[in-house]
């Protein structure tokens, strides 16, 4: 059955393929063994990543954040069979596609606002994504709209409720956007405004911490 799957991406950690499973169009995310790691350690690590991803996908959904539907999580094969999001493209590709057109600016603004709201929903329920980038959020654009947001790639996620964890999660997003999008600052403002609109007072503490994390980050880059 797995022979019918067609590989579409091989990353540092996971291999993604598309195919049909149980009659559904699915995306198979598999974490193959790594030869350079000790076999026991390796299998424990990949299992833990797969488990973390599965757990977070359930918790994110419960928090009201859209994620792909799951059809099978198989720890033995370190595999997750999930819904292949129809017409899904990454937010990164979406931004790059429409960025040059100024008339699309407000569309991007509302997209960023909604991303901020979703991150706040995750954080309110103690889900830290761990790898927030514009490549790990999908949109399903239709004519004139970005469609629905779908969060993916929860392999580095963990559950926590400290302000520090939340601030670092946002900082990771900030750095990722700064390095991929020319208009990062404006987009980030919108994202944080969305986060604030949903988190309310709790956001103020997170933003204060975010300032400290930024300062720390700058120091680190200066040193080396």
């Amino acid at each position, binding site marked *: *059955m797995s022979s019918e799957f067609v590989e579409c991406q091989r990353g540092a950690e996971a291999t993604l393929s598309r195919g049909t*499973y*149980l*009659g*559904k169009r699915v995306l198979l995310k598999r974490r193959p063994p790594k030869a350079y790691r000790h076999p026991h350690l390796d299998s424990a690590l990949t299992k833990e990543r*797969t*488990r973390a991803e*599965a*757990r977070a*996908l*359930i918790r994110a*959904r*419960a*928090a*009201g954040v*859209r994620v792909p*539907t*799951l*059809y*099978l*999580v*198989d*720890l*033995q094969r370190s595999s997750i*069979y999930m*819904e292949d999001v129809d017409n899904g493209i990454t937010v990164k590709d979406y931004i790059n596609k429409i960025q040059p057109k100024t008339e699309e600016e407000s569309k991007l603004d509302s997209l960023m606002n909604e991303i901020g709201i979703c991150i706040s929903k995750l954080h309110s329920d103690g889900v830290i994504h761990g790898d927030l980038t514009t490549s790990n959020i999908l949109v399903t654009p239709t004519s004139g709209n970005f469609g629905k947001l779908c969060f993916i790639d929860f392999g580095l996620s963990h559950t926590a409720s400290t302000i520090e964890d939340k601030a670092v999660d946002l900082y990771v997003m900030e750095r990722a956007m700064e390095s991929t999008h020319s208009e990062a600052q404006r987009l980030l403002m919108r994202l944080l405004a969305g986060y604030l609109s949903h988190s309310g007072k709790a956001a103020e503490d997170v933003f204060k911490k975010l300032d400290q994390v930024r300062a720390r980050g700058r120091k680190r880059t200066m040193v080396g």
Partner: protein
Amino acid sequence: MAKSFKLEAGTIHMALVRDVQNTEEIRKKIQSGDETLRACGLVRPSLILDPIQLVVAANKSLLSAQREDLTTKSVITETLYNLSPSKNIRQSLVNFGIGAGDKDVLVFVVGDDDDFRHLEAARHVISGRWVDINELEGISDKSRIKKMYDIKDTESECFDLLDSVVSRIAVKKCL
């Protein structure tokens, strides 16, 4: 009227029977290891939204069986167990198996294409109306399903209930 679905390592056949007259007799037969019903699983259809829910649970069971890694004693009980969000085996079988007063029954057989014959044989033992599986839609009890799987409004107001249920079954035994 019965329907078959491909699993990764086999096939599941299922059929919906309504106005079942002899539920108690059927339950007793299963408990005593009746020849005809031995290959069949019986699920409470009010807890099933769509065939895919049972398909995902059975698929997982068959993989466990292949690896000799069943938590329960058979692929049938394992499928009932996988349907259930509870870790308690007995409780899961009580919740998802049919009870004394049930009038609707979802019968299933997990195996290969040939095992359809077990479903055919069950026709002689389960007396009721064998209807189209699509009638499931009118039987499933959404509010009970929400409660059973502990799905809160924040989730059910935003997303399809079936997707929420199927996702939970997919991660069973993995968290």
